């Protein structure tokens, strides 16, 4: 007979945590996002652009004080779950628990129900479920949850490019810039741009979404990526799109890039645009 040691987590605490994250992320920006946003207000050279940013700054204050969602598009819930392989979930199915937490958060938090049950039939599910959940199994006994409610104004401006290896880094830069220029005012600039390079068709998209949840005080571990992020941020801010797309010098607040190994014949690049309300919440259970 063998004895094994597992850590038991009950779905009740998962449901509660997810509910809290839904409400928190929709009313308060994370401190790193808030700091970068405040810096943007000082950097903007256009008069109208500064006016727009001041309005957005006041909006954040009102949202937090009066508990009104920062934006009416409280998004489709996207959850990144890192589940330690020494955990046992008790009380129900983990996916059901996460979806229940989303339901509770969107009902109790006065958040908008923006999900339809089928992309063609389009009948509202009335509770903002289901969420889109990305699972990763890791070592250890922690359950790490990142919830990001994704608004579709920006999501709709996101793109994937299956580049050729010969296109190289120049091709990647062109893909990022093209996506941002095509988005323009539609993605409620200033934007946060998440980029995934490598993997496969679906992997690079997932990398790009995950990149949006990075704490802005952290950097990519790869020097060439750090350089690329900095260069793309500068070039995007030279586009002239500005706050609200009404012209200005602050078009993006950050460019976050994640990479993954890929096939010898491929260079997949995904560009996931987010607006300035880059919402996410993090819990470790």
């Amino acid at each position: 007979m063998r004895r094994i040691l597992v850590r038991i987590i009950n779905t009740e605490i998962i449901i509660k945590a997810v509910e809290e994250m839904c409400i928190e992320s929709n009313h308060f920006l994370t401190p790193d996002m808030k700091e970068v946003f405040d810096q943007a207000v000082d950097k903007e050279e256009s008069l109208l652009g500064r006016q727009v940013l001041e309005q957005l700054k006041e909006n954040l204050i009102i949202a937090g004080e009066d508990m009104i969602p920062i934006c009416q598009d409280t998004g489709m819930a996207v959850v990144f779950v890192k589940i330690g392989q020494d955990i046992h979930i008790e009380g129900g199915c983990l996916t059901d628990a996460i979806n229940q937490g989303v339901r509770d958060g969107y009902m109790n938090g006065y958040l908008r129900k923006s999900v339809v049950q089928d992309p063609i039939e389009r009948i509202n599910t009335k509770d903002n479920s289901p969420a889109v959940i990305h699972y990763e199994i890791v070592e250890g006994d922690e359950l790490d949850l990142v919830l990001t409610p994704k608004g579709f104004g920006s999501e709709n401006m996101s793109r994937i490019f299956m580049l050729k290896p010969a296109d190289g880094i120049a091709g990647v830069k062109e893909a990022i810039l093209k996506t941002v220029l095509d988005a323009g005012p539609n993605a409620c600039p200033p934007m946060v741009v998440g980029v995934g390079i490598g993997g496969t068709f679906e992997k690079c998209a997932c990398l790009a979404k995950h990149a949006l949840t990075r704490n802005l005080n952290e950097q990519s571990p790869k020097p060439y990526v750090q350089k690329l992020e900095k260069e793309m941020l500068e070039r995007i801010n030279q586009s002239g799109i500005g706050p609200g797309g009404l012209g200005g010098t602050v078009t993006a607040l950050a460019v976050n890039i994640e990479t993954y190994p890929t096939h010898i014949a491929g260079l997949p690049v995904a560009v996931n645009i987010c607006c300035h309300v880059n919402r996410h919440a993090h819990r470790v259970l």
Partner: protein
Amino acid sequence: MGNLPGNGEIMSRELKVPFHRKKAKELTAGDYVYLTGTIYTARDAAHKRMQETLIQGKPLPFDINENVIYYMGPSPAREGRAIGSAGPTTAGRMDKYTPALLDKGLGGMIGKGKRSLAVIDAMKRNQAVYFAAVGGAGALLSKCIVSSEIIAYEDLGTEAIRKLEIVNFPVIVVIDCEGNNLYETAIKEFAR
């Protein structure tokens, strides 16, 4: 909600809504305007139904003539409040349905983001105006809405048609009735 933060440098004007079609000529792309009066919300699903209604030759759920549509679906209101978060949605998704509504008399639209050439042409031939509200300012904009009443398509929930009473609702004229487009001109001014 009268003064914009940091104001004193950008000229602004007040406008009652709905406004007479001949007033459209006084509005130029780039104008900062505070709207007071009545507007109607409608977005993707409501526009699809209105298009079907027009095809069937039936009357629209409200008198569209010279009225302004706000592309918006609010979050639920807490007790004692008129409306939840209420910022603009991307207008371009309604482009397919818009020329027909403009030809039927729609006076103006509030949203955010680019419009198609077909919409701009219909705006010019009908002397209509497209305003942008600041995308993402849902909480702030909700403070400018004093009442909200569902008048059609209640089953659509957030996408129902609502009649809103607004006071000093801040918008920018993005495309005027002559087709001048701030999104195009402004980017050129700041592109390096």
